[in-house]
């Protein structure tokens, strides 16, 4: 019962956050001289008449609060507006750019969690072993390489040699799942590794530290004195307790993920929301920018809700208090 109330409250907070983000984005972009926007749309040689025509066609001559009202009205009906340039709905642009980004984010997060957790657990249980030392070096390398360097390196070391030798499974650009899982994997593998490299290093270090801490706790001594197998002591008792801080860190990182996505999308020519937002910003394509901002905010709110849910499932102390 408490859980249900907790999540209803979290969903309501999420809606307030979304409204604040939408409003902030709207005023930030629309409260600018409309002349500048219209001028850019109309092109260099535009006459004042053309500019005025553009302004009235886009509705930019209406009072700002009226525009805001229209914007909100559209928003609650799920309509994010139209692109200034192509007249395409922002919804359809989003839907078109979502698959590469979603593939990248979901695969990347899974890869970094699997890699970070497994290397971290092995390092902690074999602390000061050769494996632990190697992984520490690997973590340092991972942490000190910027994402675009990892991406370019992978292209240079993996992609180019393979493709030059006729092995084209690993490919550039994006191939949708409709074309089969194989090609999709081939297109996504390097982007996933790129996105996950730095984060996997961070999560390896975090997991190792948390697990070493939890293995030093009194309840681990209790578990051993109960006559449990060492495996059970480490996984059921140690790792279980080390997981909660990792999950809360994930909540923070998912929020910052979209920034990293832009770089990876560009390096591998995936298209996607990150690349499309950058383009929209260059073009002053306000409805697209705002639409993407709201979509990103929605993603962060939902991701945090999921993280909170998982956290509450993992830790009874959060659940009840």
């Amino acid at each position, binding site marked *: 019962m408490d859980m249900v109330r907790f999540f209803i409250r979290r969903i309501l907070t999420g809606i307030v956050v979304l409204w604040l983000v939408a409003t902030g984005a709207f005023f930030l972009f629309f409260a600018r001289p409309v002349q500048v926007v219209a001028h850019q749309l109309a092109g260099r040689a535009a006459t004042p008449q053309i500019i005025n025509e553009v302004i009235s066609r886009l509705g930019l001559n209406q009072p700002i609060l009226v525009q805001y009202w229209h914007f909100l009205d559209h928003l609650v009906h799920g309509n994010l507006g139209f692109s200034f340039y192509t007249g395409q709905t922002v919804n359809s642009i989003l839907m078109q750019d979502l698959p590469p980004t979603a593939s990248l984010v979901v695969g990347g997060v899974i890869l970094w969690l699997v890699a970070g957790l497994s290397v971290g657990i092995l390092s902690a249980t074999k602390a000061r072993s050769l494996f632990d030392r190697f992984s520490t070096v690997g973590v340092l390398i991972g942490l000190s390489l910027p994402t675009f360097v990892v991406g370019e390196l992978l292209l240079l070391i993996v992609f180019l040699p393979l493709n030059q030798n006729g092995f084209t499974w690993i490919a550039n650009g994006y191939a949708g799942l409709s074309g089969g899982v194989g090609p999709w994997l081939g297109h996504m593998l390097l982007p996933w590794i790129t996105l996950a490299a730095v984060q996997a290093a961070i999560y390896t270090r975090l997991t190792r530290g948390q697990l070493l801490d939890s293995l030093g706790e009194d309840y681990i001594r*209790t*578990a051993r*004195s109960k*006559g*449990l197998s060492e495996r059970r002591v480490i996984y059921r008792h140690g790792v279980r*307790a080390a997981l909660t801080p990792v999950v809360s860190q994930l909540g923070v990182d998912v929020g910052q993920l979209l920034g990293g996505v832009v770089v990876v999308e560009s390096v591998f020519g995936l298209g996607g929301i990150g690349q499309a937002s950058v383009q929209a910003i260059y073009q002053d394509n306000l409805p697209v920018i705002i639409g993407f901002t709201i979509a990103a905010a929605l993603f962060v709110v939902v991701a945090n809700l999921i993280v909170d849910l998982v956290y509450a499932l993992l830790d*009874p102390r959060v659940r*009840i208090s």
Partner: protein
Amino acid sequence: MTLLEVKDLAVSFPTADGLVQAVRGVSFTVDAGRTLGIVGESGSGKTVLTQTLLGLTPGGQISGSAVFDGVNLLGLPEDKMRRIRGAQISVIFQDPLTSLHPLYRVGWQIAEMIRAHDSSVSKAQAHERAVELLGRVGIPRPELRVNDYPHQFSGGMRQRAMIAMALSLEPKMIIADEPTTALDATVQAQILDLLLRLQQDFNTALILITHDLGVVADIADDVMVMYAGRAAEKATKRDIFYSPHHPYTKGLLESIPSSTAASERLRPIAGQPPSLINLPAGCKFHPRCAYVMDRCLSEEPSLRVVGEDAFHSSACWLPVEAAGLSDRAEELRKETVREGRSDAAAEVAEAIAAAPESEGSVI
């Protein structure tokens, strides 16, 4: 019947600072159904001693033997050791909050232990047994509380749950490591009563580790006083309290707060326990001993019989007759010290007398 016989057990840990000699040759026996109290300050080796019996001191260099029910526990392969832990020897730790896993239900933690040793027990049966055990240790409405998490229990209830867990497989021996130290005084007495009652019901041997002679007075049969990794004195409870021989035992007795004589000042034992890396020469207690003599500076005494029954033994150079709290015994001690003390020992004695009382440790 002797259940556990420990002989010359020594445990040391190599560290960057040097070899930590945590236990330096300890021998004792525990009989079925009896309680041995092991008393000493922090760092006297009492916890390491019992953890070693269960193979829970990784990295320690261990020598000696510890025969439990016909099996030498030291050097036992891990899989055999695991079958003894919990099932034949179980442990109750000091702080029940940190010793129970915070993320699992109390009943689950008890059931886990039952099923770890007997996989034929179903989850439902193990759960039922957990309810029964929680009821037995005095937890109200156990069928509901069995599904609580440790943080929903009070300190005393948590320790009751730990005791329930320790009893769940009806072990032959329980090691209780400072079981009441983390609890309120009123709860302490309840927990000790419970422990004593259940021990009698189950006819379990009990090793009770404590720094509190008051706890020993409540439930121990025999007592071993430890100092710097060795037994300073071993005796029945009666002899420890009425005719202590070792000055350290005497010091411990004098530093017990007594509720009846609240106005009387406690007499702390001067100084601190020695570092286990750099142990003093001779008797390890001599830098804190009011009866220090010349020979204490260079020769370490070993245990010898000091009482009427052969069990009462003490590792001190004072004469065998100088046991007890009587004026006659004190006179005898003083006389021995007068004869046995020259310049070197006198200097140590002066340093002890001059040490500010606040630096002494009341334990």
